[in-house]
Structures are given as C-alpha cells and as structure tokens.
C-alpha cells in the first residue's frame, strides 16, 4: 500500500431507556418474561388503540441531551416511519425525524496520543423498539414476541468525527458512563440495551471529500466493534487500491468469521414515508421542566474523580476503577459514610470485588451487596470478631447473596475463637504432632514458626486470631 488512508467513522447508538413502563403504554419493560405477557392493545398494534407518551422517556432523553451538550428542542414532534415487518405490529415505528428532541451536541474524548477531541452529536431522538421474531426451525414457522415492542429507545447520532477504533471505543465508553450515571440506561452491549451501528468510509490522507460510506450492524461488544472497524477499513482500502468502488450499503458483521456481508444496498433502500404522527401531540418543553431536569443532573465522573482525590485521598488507580461505574461509586460512598474508612472500602472493591466480578462475569452495575453490609464486614474485621481469612470467605457469600455478614458468621460459627484454653489445647496438639518443626524453631529457624502457625490456624479452621496463635506458639516452644 503506497498511499496513506484515513478512516472516517460516525456512530448511530441505540440506547434502551431504564423506564419501568413502555414509551406509549403502561406495559412493563422488564426483561425475560414469558412471550407476549407484557403486551396490550397499544403495543400490539390493535385497531383503535392510541399511543400516549411516557413522560419519563422525555425526561431521560433531555437529561442525556444536556449531559452531551445538546440544544434541547423546545417544540419537538414524533413521526411515523412506515415499513412492513412482522416484529413491527403497526407496520410503522413511532420515531422522530423532522424535530428530534436534542441536536447539535458533543462529548470530549481522550485520544490515543493523550490529547482531547470533541465528537459531535448531530441529534438524539426518541423512538419505540420493535418486538422479537423467533424462527422455529423444527416447526418451520416464525413466532413473534411483542414484549419488547414499545420499549423506549433513544438513538444518538454522532457526526463523522472519529478516526480510529480507539476513538470509537472512547466515545462509546464516554456515552455509556454519562448515561449510566444519569440512571437512564444500564447500557449493556451484550444484552442489547446499547447497540452501535458503525458508519465508515476511508479517504486518502489529506483529502477533503469524504469517501463512500457503509453501515455496519450487529456489533455486540467493544471487541467486535474494533474488529469490524479494522475489517471494514481494510476491505474498503483493498477495493480502492484495486481500482474498484466502495458501494453505499448496509453490512452485517459476523464476529465469529471475522467478516461482513451485505444486508441491503442503497438501491433497495426503502421509502419510509415519514410524516408527523397525528395521534401524538407536539412535545413542548417548558422552561420549568428543563430547569428541573438540569437541577437533577448527577455528579458525573470527572467531578467525582476530582472530589475523591481531595476528599478521600485515594490513589488515582483506585479512583479510576471505582468511578467507572456509578453503582460502584455509590457503593463506595455509602459504605465510607458508614464506616469512615475510605481506603479500607476501596481495598475491598479493588481486591475481592474485582476478583469475584471477573470470576463470576458480573457487571459492576449488577453488584448486589449493600454498602451497609460491606461497612459491617470492615468493622467485624477491625474488631477482630472475624479474621481476615474468614472475612474473605464471608464476602464471597455476600457478593452473591448480600447476606448480613454478622448474622452469617454467627450462624456458621465463623467468629474468631478468643478462648485462651481452647487455643492452648490446639497449640499443644500441633507441637506434639510436629516435633521436627519445634526443634528447628528452637535451633533458631524463625521460619519454622510460620509453618506451626499455619497448622494451628488450619486446625482452628481459620477462626483463631493469628497474632494470638503466634504468641502462644512461641511461648509453648520456649518451654
């Protein structure tokens, strides 16, 4: 490849909002219910049914718009996007084309080189999700589940401002954090509550005109996005280098094969016949409403990081990790408020919590243990009611079941044995069983005492205070 190329990327990001009910009816949005149990005449497109906008959807969309520096459209409308497909019960999707709720925003990301750049946001619009089609190969039929039909979405459309996969990931991470901090969505790519379509073109370095772009769908993880960007960049450069033309089309990424294939070309692009939905009244955003949403914006990550440094004096590494999720930051703050020991709380989060999250593939926002229980665990350890080893064991149960550590230690008999007599008895048994080690220690081998402490702790099932064991052992050996 003799020429230098530049990749130009814009994203369309769909985010499922965390409302309790659907965008235009009162049905639950809860995930995983039996098919078609969360439906009503409205979200199944029954004749005569009418949509009514869920106010929370509007508030979330405005909050995301404010967090991404958008202008809020004070007189917005919903439009119908007409197309026939069985997962779309009305055969039109209620969306926004002409007057979307947010426009002209942008977020700042850090570039690979350590600099900063702004990725522009063209618009954010509200729309309804479609149902789910299930193809039953065995029965040779297709079934439709309308539980997801009418679940609220926002679509965040960026400007073509990104130039690499790293920038794309940084932008997505930034959006994810902002939206999670707002509580507007859990933004999980794997579960589809955040979906990104990549619009990509290449051009010779220094060229002013954009190249012909393609749109890539079915990207379910950051890794898939990176691979798809690399793959598509290469494909387009190969086409140009071999004198062919890039065709404007929608492609589907197959992450297993590491390649994409055409879904539809521009020629088969449908005419969606958009027009304002006459069943919905225009959305008028009052000063008062805007003011209320603005006032309710949370402390975002950057501000939080600054405060943690000043208020708690935590190392930057800890702050980075804790603030990566609003839920973990909330946990940290609440537990610290109870026990007053930020570093100890941080240690639990950085150590055992991260280890178990990795082991059990748990997302930070799904951590279920309460800050009260974490604070209590720290107190129990401080007061030597349980040993460090036992605390870890208890924490593991807390991690999965959010048990009360004190009650659990009590019930399972895990509290440290401070009964001097019982300890003396066990030590005597250990000394009797390991004469060689005792001899070694007496001969000045300090290390041997470690082995004996370990044996005693083992016999006590970890419930002894290691310091006390050490003291009693040394005394006993000297006898």
């Amino acid at each position, binding site marked *: 490849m003799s020429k230098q190329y530049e990749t130009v990327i814009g994203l369309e990001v769909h985010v499922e909002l965390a409302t309790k009910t659907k965008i235009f009816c009162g049905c639950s949005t809860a995930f995983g219910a039996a098919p078609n149990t969360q439906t009503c005449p409205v979200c199944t*497109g029954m*004749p*005569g049914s009418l949509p009514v906008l869920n106010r929370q959807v509007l508030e979330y969309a405005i909050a995301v718009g404010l967090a991404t520096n958008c202008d809020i459209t004070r007189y917005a409308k919903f439009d119908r996007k*007409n197309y026939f497909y*069985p997962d779309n*019960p009305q055969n039109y999707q209620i969306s926004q084309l002409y007057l979307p709720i947010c426009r002209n925003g942008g977020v700042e990301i850090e570039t690979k080189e350590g600099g900063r750049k702004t990725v522009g946001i063209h618009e954010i619009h509200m729309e309804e999700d479609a149902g789910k089609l299930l193809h039953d190969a065995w029965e040779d039929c297709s079934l439709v589940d309308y539980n997801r039909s009418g679940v609220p979405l926002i679509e965040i459309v960026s400007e073509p401002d990104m130039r690499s996969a790293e920038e794309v990931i940084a932008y997505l991470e930034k959006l994810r954090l902002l939206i999670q901090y707002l509580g507007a969505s859990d933004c999980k790519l794997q579960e589809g509550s955040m979906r990104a379509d990549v619009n990509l073109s290449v051009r010779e370095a220094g060229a002013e005109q954009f190249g012909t772009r393609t749109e890539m769908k079915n990207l379910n993880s950051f890794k898939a996005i990176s691979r798809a960007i690399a793959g598509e960049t290469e494909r387009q450069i190969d086409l140009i280098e071999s004198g062919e033309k890039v065709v404007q089309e929608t492609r589907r990424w197959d992450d297993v094969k590491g390649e994409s294939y055409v879904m539809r070309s521009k020629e088969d692009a449908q*005419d969606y016949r958009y*027009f304002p939905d*006459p*069943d919905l009244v225009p959305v008028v955003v009052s000063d008062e409403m805007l003011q209320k949403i603005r006032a309710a914006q949370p402390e975002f990550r950057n501000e939080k990081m600054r405060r943690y440094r000043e208020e708690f004096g935590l190392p930057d590494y800890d702050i980075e990790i804790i603030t990566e999720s609003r839920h973990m930051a909330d946990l940290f703050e609440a537990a610290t408020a109870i026990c007053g020991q930020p570093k100890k709380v941080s240690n639990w989060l950085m150590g055992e919590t991260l280890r178990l999250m990795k082991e059990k593939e748990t997302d930070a926002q799904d951590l279920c243990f309460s800050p009260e229980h974490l604070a209590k665990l720290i107190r129990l350890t401080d007061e030597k009611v349980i040993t460090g080893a036992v605390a870890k064991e208890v924490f593991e149960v807390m991690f999965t079941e959010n048990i009360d550590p004190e009650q659990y230690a009590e019930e399972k008999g895990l509290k440290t044995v401070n009964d001097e007599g019982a300890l003396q008895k066990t030590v005597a048994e250990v000394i009797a069983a390991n004469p060689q080690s005792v001899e070694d220690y007496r001969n000045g081998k300090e290390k041997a005492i470690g082995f004996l402490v370990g044996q005693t702790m083992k016999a006590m099932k970890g419930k002894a205070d290691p310091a006390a064991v050490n003291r009693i052992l040394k005394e006993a050996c000297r006898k």
Partner: protein
Amino acid sequence: MRMTEMTAVELSAAIRAGQVTAVEAVEEMLAGIEERDALYNCYVTVDREGALAQAQAVQAQIEAGELTGPLAGVPVAVKDNLCTKGLRTTCASRMLENFVPTYTAEAVVNLRKAGAVILGKTNMDEFAMGSTTETSAYGVTRNPWNREHVPGGSSGGSAAAVAAGECICALGSDTGGSIRQPAAYCGMVGMKPTYGTVSRYGLIAYGSSLDQIGPLTKDVRDCAAVLEAIASHDVKDSTSLQRQDTDFMAALTEDVQGMRIGIPNDYLGEGLDEDVRAAVLKAAEELAGRGAVVERFDLSLVEYAIPAYYTIAAAEASSNLERFDGIKYGHRTTDDAGLHSMYRKSRSEGFGEEVKRRIMLGSFVLSSGYYDAYYLKALRVKALIKKAFDEAFAKYDVILGPVAPTTAPRLGESLADPLKMYLGDIYTIAVNLAGLPAISLPCGKDRKGLPIGLQLIGDCFQEKKLIRAAYTYEKNRGPFGTAGDAEHGTAADERTQADAGSFRASGEGQISQCGMLRHGGKSGKPESEQSTEGTDRTGGIPS
C-alpha cells in the same frame, strides 16, 4: 306513542317512570330490526343476547336509583368502526370479518355508563371511506325515506337505523362529513364535535387528525344528551381535551336574539341543487325571524378544502391501515407463499376498491420527493383554512349553509364517478380540517320527498351556540315527519326515475345487484353470501 317513534329523552323518561322497562324497549327494537332490517341493511351485527342482558342490568340499576340520566335504558346502535369488547367489529371490511376486540371504545364505555343499551353494530363505508355506505363488504344500506337512494356515508348504517326506527339514536364518526351528511340524507340530526371533545380511543382510525365521534339522533335535544354523555377527557388519547363546558343540555334554549349568523357565498355557488338552496335560505330567514342577525359573506379557500382533505386523510389512512397485514388478526390469505406474498395477497383480498384507492393515493403523497409538494402543501392549506374560519368567527357566532349540494343520490350513482362523490363533501370537509364543531339537522324536503340538511358551523368549543341555534330552528320548524310516512312514495319515485332513464348503465348494474340483496334478505348476522356479494361489488380479489 310507539316506542320506536320516541326520542331518547322521552323513552328514558318513560322507563324511569316505570311505564315501560328497558328490556321491553330492547325487545321492541329487536323486533323492529327483525321486521325491517332486511329492507335497509342498517346493521352488520346485531347483539341480541348482549343487548337483552345489558337491558336487564340497566333496568335493575334504574330501579335501584343508580341510573337517573336522560339516556338510561335507551337502546342505541354503534357504528362498526368503534371497538366493542367481545362483539365483532368489522369496519364493514372483509379484512376484519372475524375481528373481536378485547376492549371497548371510550365513547361507547361512556354511553354505557349513562345507561344506554348497545343493540349492535351499524353498516358503514369500508373503513369509513365513502359517502354512500356502498363500499361496505356487507352490502349497501338503503335510505329509509326511499330505498332506491343511498343513506349517505360513511355513517349511513347509523343514520338509517335511527330513521328506520331500528334504534333510538346512534353513534357515528365524522372525518369529512360522515355524520352530518348521512344525517342530512336520512332526515336526522347529526353532530361533529370540536376535535378532541370525544376520545378516539377504540375508534378504528381513518384520518386520525380529522376523525371525531358524534351523535346521530332524532332531534337536537337527543343530540345534546348523547354528546354530553360521550364527551370526556381520556388519558388514553393524547389528542383528548379537558373541557369543563360539556353540559350541552343546558344549551337547549329557544334564543337566537342577536346571534350573528353568516352565510358563506361560497356555499351557495355552482353545483348546489335548487331545492337545497331554497330550503337552506328559508331556514336562515326563519332564524332571522327569531331575532338572529343573518348576512352573507365570502369565506374564501372553499375550493381548496377538498384536495387538502383528500391528501391529508389519505396520507394518514395509508399509514393507519398498514397494521392490517394478516399477521396478528383479521384476514390472512390461504395462499401464503412467503412473507411479502402473504402481505400482498392478504391486503389485496381483504380491502375493497375505494380503500385501495385511498391507500395508494396516501402512499403517493407521502413518498420521497412528493412529500413537500403534496402533503406539506396540504397542511399549509389546512392552516390557511383554519385562519379563514378564525376571521369569519371574529364576525359571526355561527356559519350557516347546506350539508351537501344535493339530497341523497340514487344507489350506484356515486361510485361510478368517485371524483364527483368527493366533490359532494365540499361543505362538510373544511370543518374537519379546521377541527370545528358542526351540526346537521333537517330543514325541508326536495321535490322527490328526500330530506334536506341544514348545517350550522361553530368556532372551536362553541357547541352550545350550535345547539341553541339548532334547537331554536327545530322548535320553529315543527315536527319533520319520519321516514315511515314517506315509504309509500318510494315505489312511485323509483318508477318515475327509472322511466326517465336518468341513471347510467353503470348505475343500472348497481341497482340490479341491490335487487339481489333484497331477495337475499338479512337476519342480524351477515351471511357469507352477502359478504361475497359485497366484495364482488367492490372489486374484491384481483388475480
């Protein structure tokens, strides 16, 4: 007086006074339907058992003192585009032949709360698209004043049922005149309220921004009573209004002293039948005689209302009717080779000619490249029409004119020339575009003895002025007579017209088909024979 001749208010009073029971009233109506509906075909579905059960429950509530309103115990009919839980709702389309809703339209819920008993579902133009009730897949409805004439449409079944004494009053829906025009053709009172006054929840949409549900009744008092019962703010309909002034019966006073009434010159121009013109102007004179200040003025833009209406209504309809795809409910072809073929065939088989025409028109005006030229332009015209009315209402309390250029056309005449049929909506359509209330009431008969309708149009929220003016006129006019009185004249008129050779060859074909219908008869439930006939007539299944 026979119960079938009573108004709703009279009948309810008799029931509440214990002179008759709600069950007896329903039985009388059902007997009337049994006896006469074969002649007129007003109903698509009659809910005999349901109505009797409702009547028993209502009677018990009346006796317990729980129902005291003017509609308690009154048997009513409901247009078949209003959803009724557990009762088939077809929109007079083959597409919804087997559709049984799981919910009831809010307006019907309100009517039932007031103690009305639902007898059944009335015939209409398919999906309310038409002005004659001839596009129904369940056969044409005939005008009780003269069976060779249409009852008007699209709420023709409702208007004819009231006129034929097959119900006391009825609900219709009005998108471009679909309540007012059949009311005029059948000698009844019909009202289209201000947009947003009656909830559209459960009304199977035609043109969502224009559709309103309203009453079809024997007199103005019943009209006010029914409107008062069905008007409500409904959180299920975003376009529903919160109004405090829905005590419409309070406006039933004979007083038009000083009321400023304007007659648009545009409503008296070319194409207006002489008999209609004379009757309408005479009505205006009568109102002037009661103290109203009547004058003529130029409304302007009237000629643009029809193209704007057919653009907007068709655009909305093309989208509203997309949900009828054979997937979830309604007609699905038996010959389904793949998804797209299934869509195409189900819709081709399920929809009639007029519906297809409007879906195509609507899809065209919304399509990329034409949206600005047609749809947006139509919306601008709509805004200008509203402005023209605003200016008129700065000068007048009420605008007076005819409902339609002619009285009821003969069967078959209209469908032969759809453009002419569309032009027949010229006086009613602008009201829907501007969201205004308007009432239609009988003001005379033409030389054939067919009723002529007077239209009174008010500014938004001014239903009470309309009711006051209409009530005053009605009292002054005196009894209008019933279709029953005119039935004897039917045959003679039919011969005269036929001998004069005044209908076209295409019209002749229609007439003969209607003749078949007469023999086919009808007993409450539509027969497969009839529905086949209906679809054949409307063009049905293209190969």
